[in-house]
Structures are given as structure tokens and as C-alpha cells.
């Protein structure tokens, strides 16, 4: 029977696992993504989880989702809507069905659709499918009871047995996409290395799920995704943005031959950077979980003063608290990397969701004239390069640097070719040299870069005092002299502006003679790129200029923006970058596409908006 199974060759497929936040959906999704990556597919993932750790079981607020986009060719986003939705309970079905394509497939755990379960999800009838008007194919599988049956002789207690039901769903999905289970089994054995009985129970259920699909549902079309174009040769791993950020910092410290210090305070969605760096003590990484966000940043300023590559990580609300110490680094002219994994605001806002609403805060959210370089990571894997560049600029230009990522790129993952540090530019902080002793003063500057020289405590012959008060240029002695202050304000500004000489020019992708230039920045790159590719395939002349460097802007920014008749800035805020560009490039006429939903852009909506603008 199975031999006659129809195999659809899909270019790409999107799968979404959803269930209670304790149902292990993130793990199932992660394994499926890794299994797909190991066969050479490109992947992009999007965990969509609730802010509550354990909302009431079966409730609508407690649904946790994990979406994976698997493609034969390049994949830029986790996909708009999924082909397959796994819904482990009625609440998941109710909240997640909107993410499923009309011709998609819904897999449910029928054991979790009893009257009491339906009630928890506020269904008013006993037919949730009819009540929701579901048109998709539905595959109702008694996952819980089969899981119990499968493990009845395992010796595990009932609770532990039911924890394996995510693997049944995963097995089923693996069957659906012809995934070999050996890679998944290997991952489970590694994950549960200390509990082999749990590993074996999960593996058994995984196989049962796979076999269930093969034995009973041959009528469902299965998909196979094969690599279309081989990627560049080399070793790859699956990496999310927060981990890539941590790796970029470690790489930069090694390249600069410095020790890495992180002062931080837990905050969603940035905490995983703290977790990741805390693991790597064998690389000499020092992590201090401070008493608050303020101390996280202030201690990093102290570590920088003492000669470490100092970093503080947070999300928007934390930046509010750190801005005072960030400003100290501005006036003291000390290197510091400040990472803001943006989430929905204002205030506590949407802690687990993604926005680009902290741009102006990063640029201007401090008292006084407080210039600070701002870099924005464009994808999960670009977080590595962006973190590396943030550290390089901070160290070489003696300035705090803000790196903006967001919940979407931080939690999303993609296949990443392991980098070779030899390919990355050297990092040379402007340390004082012994021959400077005697003539050196704290605010002497390199004429070309405007950067002061760094004397680290412990260095003989260079004792000096710095601080948050305005100081005389060159000597660093406290000064309230009007002309001096004016000069220092300009010197600090010029120092940051000169960084434009050390960053790449803005690249225009797509049609150089486009009728429409799409402009974006940071984490929306994947969606904007996809929209552009699609429109060009349809014969439209479109280009994309996506900014990674925001302050200073690339030197050719004005030239690029003025070259196109129609320019639209698409961003997940009310137009912060558009306004910034209007200020920096006077006279330009730009359109805006703004959405602030806490969710990634939907490519379809972008295409519609851009097409409409083209036709106006």
C-alpha cells in the first residue's frame, strides 16, 4: 500500500507545531528543523511562545507554537502560513488555524478533544472543526492513547509517558516529509544522555508515530523536499540569532586578543545571549548576572574601563534603564557593546513578540548630544557578523555601539556556514604604547579617526582620571568653559560620523534601474527580499536597499535614495527609519509601509502594498 504513495515534490514547505506550552512543541520543531538541515535543506524557524511560563493547561493563552520553513533553495523567512499544522489540543487549534494555508493539513491529538478540553478553549459546541469553519484536511490521531500503549511496559510513570507525545507528532510529520529518523534519534540520545530510559522511550514513540503514518494514512499526500542548488561547500550548523550574537562576541574578543565581559539582567527575548555566553567559561568569558539592568550596563562600563571587551544585553525596557550608563560611556569615550533584542512596546508591551520600535531610542534616547553608532542585524545568521562588527567598531573607535536585533531574528534560526575567523577583519583597539608615556593625555586624539588612546589601569606611566563631567579636550581636566564644551560636542559627533569610512557602502539588490526601491533595515530583510524576488519574477522592476548600518549611514545613502523615482521604507514601527532618513537626506520623497503587530511581516501583504504603489 505504501509503495503506491504519491510523493509530491515541493520546493518548500512550512510546518507549524502547536500545543500547550508544556507539550514540548519547541523541541519537536527544533528536531524537525535540524533533521531537515542535515539533509541539506535550507531552513528558517520561528518560535512563537506565550509570555507565561505555564499558563493554565489547555487554555488559549498557554499555546506555544514553532514554525519551520524548509526549502530546497534559499529560504529567507519562516513562511507566512503553514502547509501542515500540528494542534495538540483545542486551544492550539483555535488560536493557530489562522496560520494554516486553506489547502493545508491539520493534525490533531484526538484524545485531547474531550468535552472538558473543548470547554477550556471556550468552544460552545462539541465540533470544534465545524465551529471554526475549518476547510483544511484534518487528520485526527489518538496520540495520547497510542503513546500510553506504546510505553506501557517502559516502566515510566504516566506523566513521563505523556511527555513523549510530542515525539509521536514529530514521527508523523517526519513520515509526511520522508524524513529519515536516524538524525532525530541521534539528537534525542544526546539530549537525554543522562537519562537513557527517557531517550529510548522518546525514540520508540517517534518511530511509532512514523509507522502510524506509514501504516494507516497512505492516502495523505506526502512531500519530499530536495536540495535544488547545492550551497557553498563547508560545514554547516543550525543557529538562532541570539546564539549567533553570542558567537560573534566571542569571535571578536578572540580576534582582539581581549577578555569578554557580559553584565546583564534577565529579560525576554534577550536572555538566551546571557545563557549562551555563561556556558563558555572555558573560553574565559566572564558573565555577571547583575541586580538590575542599570548595574548590567554600569558594570560593563567598569569592565571596559579596566580593559575588557565589555557587553551588556537587554531588550527595549532594559535600554530605558541602561541609557544613563550608556551615556557615561559616550562622554568617557570607552568601548561598550549594547545589545537590544527588540520586542513589542511601550512599557512591558509584548515581551515575546517582535518589533522595530526602538530605533529612535537607540539613536536619540539619552540626555545631551549623545552620538552612538547603531547597527541592526538583518537575519539570524547575520547576528554573528553584526555582533562582530559592533565589537570591532566599539573597540577601535572608543565608543559605545548599539546592536539592534529583534525577537524574530533572535529566536528564528537558519543554516549557517561555520565561519573561519581568518576571513574576518583584524580588531586593533588604540591602546597606548610605552613610548607615549610622559606626553600622553587622556583625550589626545588620532587625527584621522578622532579617537582617543586607551590607557588601561595597571599600565605604568599612564595613571589618569576620567568621568561623566565635561572635560577639556586633550587633557581631560574638568571644564565648564563654553567654547571647550562646544568643541567637545562636535568632536564626539565627528568621531562617530567618521566611522562611515570604515563600514561597507549600501548595496542595491535587484534591478538597478528599478521603478520602485524598497528600503528596509534590520530583521525584516528576509521578508522584503522575498517580496522583491517574487515581484521581479512577475516582471516588475524592483530593487531592495537594506540597511545594516544605521548610524552612521553608509556614505552612498543619499546617492542611492535619490536615484529612484519611488522609494518605500517598510518597517515594523510608525516610520522611525523613514523619518530619520528624511532628516539625514533632506529633500527626499519617500513612501512608508508600517505595521506594528508584534508579528513578522506577511510577504503577501508586502507584495500587495508594493504592487499597488507601483501602479499608482
Amino acid at each position: 500500500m505504501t509503495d503506491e504513495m504519491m510523493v509530491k515534490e515541493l520546493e518548500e514547505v512550512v510546518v507549524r507545531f502547536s500545543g500547550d506550552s508544556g507539550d514540548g512543541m519547541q523541541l519537536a520543531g527544533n528536531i524537525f528543523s535540524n533533521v531537515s538541515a542535515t539533509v541539506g535543506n535550507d531552513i528558517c524557524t520561528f518560535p512563537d511562545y506565550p509570555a507565561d511560563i505555564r499558563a493554565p493547561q489547555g487554555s488559549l493563552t498557554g499555546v506555544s507554537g514553532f514554525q519551520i520553513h524548509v526549502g530546497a533553495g534559499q529560504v529567507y523567512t519562516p513562511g507566512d502560513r503553514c502547509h501542515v499544522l500540528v494542534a495538540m489540543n483545542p486551544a492550539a487549534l483555535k488560536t493557530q488555524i489562522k496560520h494554516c494555508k486553506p489547502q493545508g493539513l491539520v493534525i490533531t491529538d484526538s484524545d485531547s478533544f474531550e468535552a472538558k478540553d473543548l470547554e477550556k478553549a471556550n468552544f460552545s459546541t462539541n465540533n470544534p472543526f465545524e465551529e471554526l469553519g475549518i476547510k483544511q484536511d484534518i487528520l485526527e490521531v489518538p496520540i495520547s492513547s497510542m503513546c500510553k500503549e506504546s510505553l506501557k511496559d517502559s516502566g515510566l510513570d504516566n506523566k513521563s509517558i505523556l511527555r513523549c507525545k510530542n515525539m509521536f507528532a514529530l514521527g508523523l510529520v517526519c513520515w509526511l516529509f520522508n524524513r529519515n529518523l536516524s538524525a532525530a534519534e541521534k539528537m534525542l540520545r544526546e539530549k537525554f544522555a543522562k537519562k537513557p530510559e527517557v531517550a529510548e522511550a522518546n525514540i520508540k514513540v517517534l518511530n511509532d508515530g512514523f509507522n502510524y503514518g506509514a501504516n494507516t494514512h497512505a492516502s495523505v499526500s506526502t512531500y519530499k523536499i530536495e536540495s535544488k542548488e547545492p550551497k557553498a561547500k563547508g560545514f554547516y550548523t543550525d543557529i538562532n540569532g541570539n546564539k549567533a550574537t553570542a558567537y560573534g562576541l566571542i569571535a571578536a574578543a578572540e580576534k582582539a586578543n581581549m577578555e569578554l565581559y557580559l553584565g546583564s539582567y534577565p529579560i525576554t527575548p534577550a536572555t538566551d545571549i546571557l545563557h549562551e555566553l555563561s556556558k563558555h567559561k572555558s573560553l574565559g568569558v566572564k558573565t555577571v548576572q547583575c541586580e538590575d539592568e542599570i548595574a548590567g550596563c554600569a558594570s560593563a562600563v567598569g569592565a571596559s574601563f579596566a580593559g575588557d571587551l565589555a557587553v551588556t544585553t537587554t531588550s527595549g525596557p532594559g535600554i530605558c534603564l541602561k541609557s544613563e550608563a550608556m551615556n557615561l560611556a559616550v562622554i568617557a569615550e570607552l568601548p561598550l557593546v549594547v545589545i537590544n533584542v527588540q520586542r513589542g512596546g511601550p512599557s512591558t508591551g509584548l515581551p515575546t513578540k517582535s518589533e522595530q520600535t526602538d530605533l529612535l531610542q537607540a539613536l536619540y534616547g539619552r540626555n545631551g548630544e549623545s552620538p552612538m553608532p547603531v547597527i541592526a542585524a538583518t537575519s539570524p545568521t547575520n547576528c554573528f557578523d553584526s555582533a562582530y562588527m559592533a565589537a570591532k567598531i566599539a573597540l577601535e573607535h572608543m565608543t559605545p555601539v548599539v546592536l539592534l536585533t529583534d525577537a524574530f531574528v533572535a529566536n528564528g534560526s537558519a543554516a549557517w556556514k561555520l565561519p573561519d575567523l581568518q576571513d574576518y577583519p583584524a580588531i586593533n583597539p588604540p591602546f597606548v604604547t610605552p613610548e607615549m608615556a610622559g606626553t600622553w593625555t587622556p583625550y589626545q586624539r588620532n587625527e584621522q579617526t578622532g579617537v582617543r588612546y586607551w590607557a588601561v589601569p595597571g599600565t605604568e606611566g599612564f595613571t589618569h582620571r576620567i568621568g561623566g563631567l565635561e572635560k577639556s579636550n586633550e587633557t581631560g581636566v574638568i571644564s565648564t568653559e563654553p567654547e571647550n564644551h562646544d568643541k567637545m560636542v562636535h568632536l564626539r559627533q565627528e568621531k562617530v560620523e567618521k566611522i562611515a569610512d570604515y563600514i561597507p557602502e549600501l548595496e542595491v539588490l535587484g534591478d538597478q534601474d528599478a521603478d520602485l526601491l524598497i528600503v528596509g533595515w534590520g530583521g525584516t530583510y528576509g521578508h522584503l527580499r522575498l517580496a522583491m524576488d517574487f515581484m521581479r519574477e512577475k516582471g516588475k522592476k524592483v530593487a531592495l536597499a537594506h540597511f545594516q548600518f544605521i548610524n552612521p549611514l553608509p556614505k552612498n545613502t543619499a546617492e542611492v535614495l535619490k536615484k529612484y523615482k519611488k522609494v518605500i521604507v517598510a518597517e515594523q514601527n510608525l516610520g522611525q527609519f523613514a523619518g530619520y532618513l528624511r532628516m539625514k537626506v533632506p529633500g527626499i520623497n519617500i513612501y512608508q509601509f508600517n505595521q506594528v503587530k508584534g508579528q513578522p511581516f506577511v510577504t503577501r501583504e508586502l507584495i500587495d502594498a508594493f504592487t499597488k504603489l507601483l501602479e499608482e
Partner: protein
Amino acid sequence: MSEKVYTIQDYKSGQPRWCPGCGDHAFLNSLHKAMTELGVAPHNIAVISGIGCSSRLPYYVNTYGFHTIHGRATAVATGAKVANPDLTIWQISGDGDGLAIGGNHFIHTVRRNVNLNMILLNNRIYGLTKGQYSPTSERGFVSKSTPYGTVEDPFHPAELTFGARGRFFARCIAVDGAASVEVLKAAANYKGASVVEVLQNCVIFNDGTHASVATKEGRSKNAIYLEHGKPMLFGEQKEFGLMQEGFGLKVVKLGENGITEKDILIHDAHCQDNTLQLKLALMEGPDFPIALGVIRDVEAPTYDEAVTEQIEEVKAKKKYHNFQELLMTNDTWEVK
């Protein structure tokens, strides 16, 4: 460590700009002397302060210095110490800087036992903003922001330190130079967060706040110099002493009611249990003398050393020690 011997001039820098008669001048002299006697090379010292009159101090010490932001000096100093545990760090704050805006950083730095010399210059007033009450001002204190008197109780720095599990607490009076130098040296020699409360006068906005112990004569009557292992005697002729009574302390006179020196409490700064040490630290006039000297001095692991030790332990255990090796700890696949 350098073999060079440094003189007091090697630690001096600039011309202090505090008001004439300010307690900060006297404290600065004691700090210069203590630094000279300790002999740590100026380039291996960092003085890190917050904001306020006393926080101007780094400019007057010829070491590495960082005049930071209001209340955050302890946090900045924590980062600097973890980054470079070889530095000797003097962290300078006033009562407003350290206990109001910086209260949270103060207690957590003490709790972590970061090896810092934490100096708290306590004049019970905001001087730089021209005379508002501080968290150490007594209830009812009249200031520009409390013209009818405060309606709140003050912190006792010792109580706060002990509540944060502080292992070292000492007290001195800014104008009492010789005793201050000894206390500062003890604080520097202690490995951990050593809190020193310096009672200090503000001639402009809170003159006479520590008047009872401002003179040598006053101190002989109203203060007791505590020394580990020595009986707790005070008075012009050492005629008074401290004894335990029930859950508290009492002042007794030698020779009265048959009391002799052997009845007097012996100071134990190293006692883990801080109950009596706290009682000593909280004594105040007119019934009790103000306790000066090292009140508590108990060994404990320091945070900065523990961070370094953990790194060494993990280095010995783990198999990856550079970025390239870190990369290979991931699940990878090869595209050929």
C-alpha cells in the same frame, strides 16, 4: 608587584575644591597616608566614585580614577574588579549616592562580597544639590526639601551592611586622622567587600552633625575604639566598659558594684554571628558611646576570585578553548 617604594606625593593629584573645613579634606589626607603605607603602586589602583561632593575625590588621587554616575559606583567598580582582579579598587560614595540612588547596588555588592574598599562618607545631607535631607538624616530633620522636618526614619549604614550579609564593617571619623588611616588599611587588607562608614561634617548645610565625636575630647567621652581581642573600654581614663545584659549591652563603670576589667566584653570582630557586632555598630549617644574601628571582619570567599576560579575549573574540564573549537561542538553537516 613593583619593588618601588612610593611616597605620599606619588598618590597626590590636583588641588581639592571642597569647601574650607569640609570633612572630605581630612579624609583625603588619611587616604593618601593609608595608600602610602600600603605601598600598592599607583598604577595598580583605581578609585571609582559616584556623584556628590565626596565623589569628586578620584581627581585628587594620582592613580587610575573614574568619576562615574550617581549611585552606580559600586556597579562600575564590580565590573572593573571582575575584569581585572589584580587592581586595588577604592570605591567612594556619600550617603545619598551610596544609600539612596545607589542603595540597590550597595546591598548587592556587599552580598556578593566583591573585593572592593567601599568608602561611605556620611554627612547625613545632600551637599552638592545644596542641602536636602539624605537617607541617613534623623527623623524630623529640617532641610530645604523638608522645611517642617522629615517624616521618615533613616538607614543605619551598619544595619544595612549586615542585612546584606556584609562581612566587613568599620567606622571612623574624618577628622580623626590616625584612627582613620588604621581603619582604611584594615579595609584594604580585608579580602572582600569592606564597608567603611566615615562620619564627616558638612560645614555649609549640616554643620555639627557629628559634633559629639568631632573633637578628641568628645571622642574620649562619647566614642569607643574597638580592637579585636581587646576589652571594650572607653572614657578619658578608660574607666567605662561595655557588658552584656540580657539581649542588650550596658555601660558600666570599673570599680562600681565590684566590676573589674575581666567582666568587660572582649571584642571579637571575627565572630561569624553578627548579633553583638550589630549591637555595637548601632550604639549611639547619649547613653552609649559611638563604636569606632573595625567592628566586623569575617573571612569569606570573594566574588571576583570565585569568578576566576570557576573559569579555571571549567577550562580544565571542557575540551574547547577557542572559537574554532567552540564551533565544532555544534551538530554540523557537510556540504561537499
